[in-house]
């Protein structure tokens, strides 16, 4: 029994680690999409952020400077996306894909030029990385059965960015649902004409939304390269941006449900790793590929209307132009 609890806790612990970049990206996508801007470019912004974080951390030896660089670069990419599809009313999906391709190529090219390691950055150690933090009292309660293990292993012992990621969810909720900015943000994604009529700039609101998205993607990127790992590696985001987008849609563009979707997808990934080659009672061995595809399958099933209904913001994907 205690073995089972330990396995369960370690799986949940892995879930938290795997979900962190998904949560950050999903919240990023939430800001952007709620304002009416489709954000396919989560992946690219995260990748660019990961590279910037690893490069700056390698040069300066400071993880926090790396994080700052990641956020800066990611916001620049977001502004580029904004410039293309807010100011110039370009196709948002095309622009987002362009961001992804740009990030995929540019990170490797710059990496080769700067570090001569085939697009990788040097391995980081010491202060150049975010290390796990032991929360107060973690050691003291470690011996308490079950609850102690949950506190020491599951809640304590993650790096700063993990806690930041989990804090972004209530902050996002508060910003989107409790503030004037949030009200306008949601309005601009549903009916930009009305917002414009009220004398509020649609462009500026949407720009602020993509900047928020850039900020969060930057943190996600930094998590990948300088917290979870110790260097940037080509294409290290490995489709997490798309999974986060799927989680956002699965979570019906709401912070709490998107968080749950991220945790579910993260849990599936953590479980895949642990169930590989293990035969389950009754079912037998579950193919890893099936588990890996589950997030996408679930999202498709949801979009097909089988699990509740996911209604996208009404004005999503439509560039706003004032009445002529």
């Amino acid at each position, binding site marked *: 029994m205690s073995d089972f609890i330990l396995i369960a806790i370690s799986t949940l612990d892995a879930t938290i680690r*795997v979900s962190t970049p998904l949560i950050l990206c999903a919240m990023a996508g939430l800001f952007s999409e709620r304002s009416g801007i489709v954000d396919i470019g989560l992946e690219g912004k995260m990748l660019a952020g990961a590279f910037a974080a690893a490069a700056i951390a390698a040069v300066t030896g400071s993880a926090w400077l790396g994080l700052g660089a990641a956020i800066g670069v990611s916001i620049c990419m977001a502004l580029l996306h904004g410039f293309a599809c807010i100011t110039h009313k370009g196709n948002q999906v095309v622009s987002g894909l362009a961001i992804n391709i740009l990030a995929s190529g540019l990170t490797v090219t710059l990496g080769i030029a700067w570090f001569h390691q085939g697009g990788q950055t040097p391995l980081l150690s010491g202060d150049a990385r975010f290390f796990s933090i032991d929360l107060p009292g973690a050691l003291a309660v470690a011996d308490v059965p079950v609850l102690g293990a949950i506190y020491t292993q599951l809640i304590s012992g993650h790096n700063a960015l993990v806690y930041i990621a989990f804090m972004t969810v209530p902050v996002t909720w508060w910003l989107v649902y409790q503030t004037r900015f949030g009200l306008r943000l949601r309005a601009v994604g549903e009916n930009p004409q009305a917002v414009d009529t009220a004398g509020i700039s649609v462009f500026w609101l949407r720009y602020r939304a993509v900047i928020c998205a850039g900020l969060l993607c930057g943190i996600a990127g930094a998590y990948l390269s300088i917290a979870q*790992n110790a260097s940037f590696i080509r294409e290290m985001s490995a489709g997490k941006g798309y999974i986060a987008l799927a989680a956002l849609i699965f979570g019906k563009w709401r912070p709490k449900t998107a968080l749950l979707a991220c945790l579910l997808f993260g849990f599936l990934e953590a479980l895949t*790793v642990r169930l590989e080659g293990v035969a389950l009672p009754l079912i037998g061995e579950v193919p890893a590929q099936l588990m890996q595809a589950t997030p996408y399958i679930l999202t498709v099933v949801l979009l097909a209307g089988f699990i509740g209904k996911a209604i996208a913001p009404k004005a999503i994907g439509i560039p706003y132009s004032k009445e002529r």
Partner: protein
Amino acid sequence: MKRQLLMLTAAVAFASSAAAVELKPAVVFDMGGKFDKSFNQGVYEGVERFKKETGITYREFEVTNPSQREQAIRKMAQREANPVLAIGFAQATALEKVAKDFPGTKFSIIDAVVSLPNVQSIVFKEHEGSFLVGMLAAMKSQTKAVGFVGGMDIPLIRRFNCGYAQGAKYAVSDVNVISNMTGSTPSAWNDPVKGGELARSQFDRGADVVFAAAGGTGVGVYQAAKDAGKYAIGVDSNQNHMHPGTMLTSMTKQVGVASYNAFKGVKEGTWQAGVSVLGLAEGGVSWAYDEHNKDLITAEMKAAVEKAQADIISGKIVVHDYMSNNECPSL
């Protein structure tokens, strides 16, 4: 007479220019890239050594997408590169097609067998080297559990896994071997995030030594081992220097020497088509013992491994090859 002389000079000039046709070697790296600190990088170091010693530059290409393989090899052959060295099992089909179209070009391939008169195939007995590091892992383990993280799920990687498990069980009969593969697509060679997560999951399940045979993915595995204070075993190149103190050893595969020899052989006219199989006896595979890990390997462990090595070479121990029947008795 004058005319004959002219023809003679022309003939001599032609002949000498033919003899001086410079060697234009080319190498096509595989997914993971030449800086994967492992398999491809071993090749890169071998061909760089050739360049340094002979002053002959080589063309190169890094495949980043499976569809590029045939195109890359063909382009090298079209540009009259000779020899063309293809790296990795996955290039076998592409190489076979191209080699048929360019019968005058010499091709070498590492990790796969292509039976054509102008192809040299170099394969390794990875199971023998893996057996030795498996022994080291089991002897080092306090928890009687050792892990294996493979790259792409292919028979070649299962051969590593199987050799490792046999070695571990040979050294400590009741050791538990936990195995994971990173994925089933070539991107599994370069996914350190997943590699790190797999390693952590194995530590959670009790393993305290993990062997990664996963190209660039291994970087994440070694980092995870370092972060968790466990031991990791490198692969292909000697990776002991990456994290001195937590890298127990590396299962080295002399891909660099093989690449160097392929180029050198063509230069000196000793290159031969056919299959060469390099195992412990030929020095093709081995385990790394250097200043970075000598404190981790006790005299007992070293003696046991050296004895097993001698026994494998003499045939006293037969390491089962997974690829011979696609089964592993120890897993």
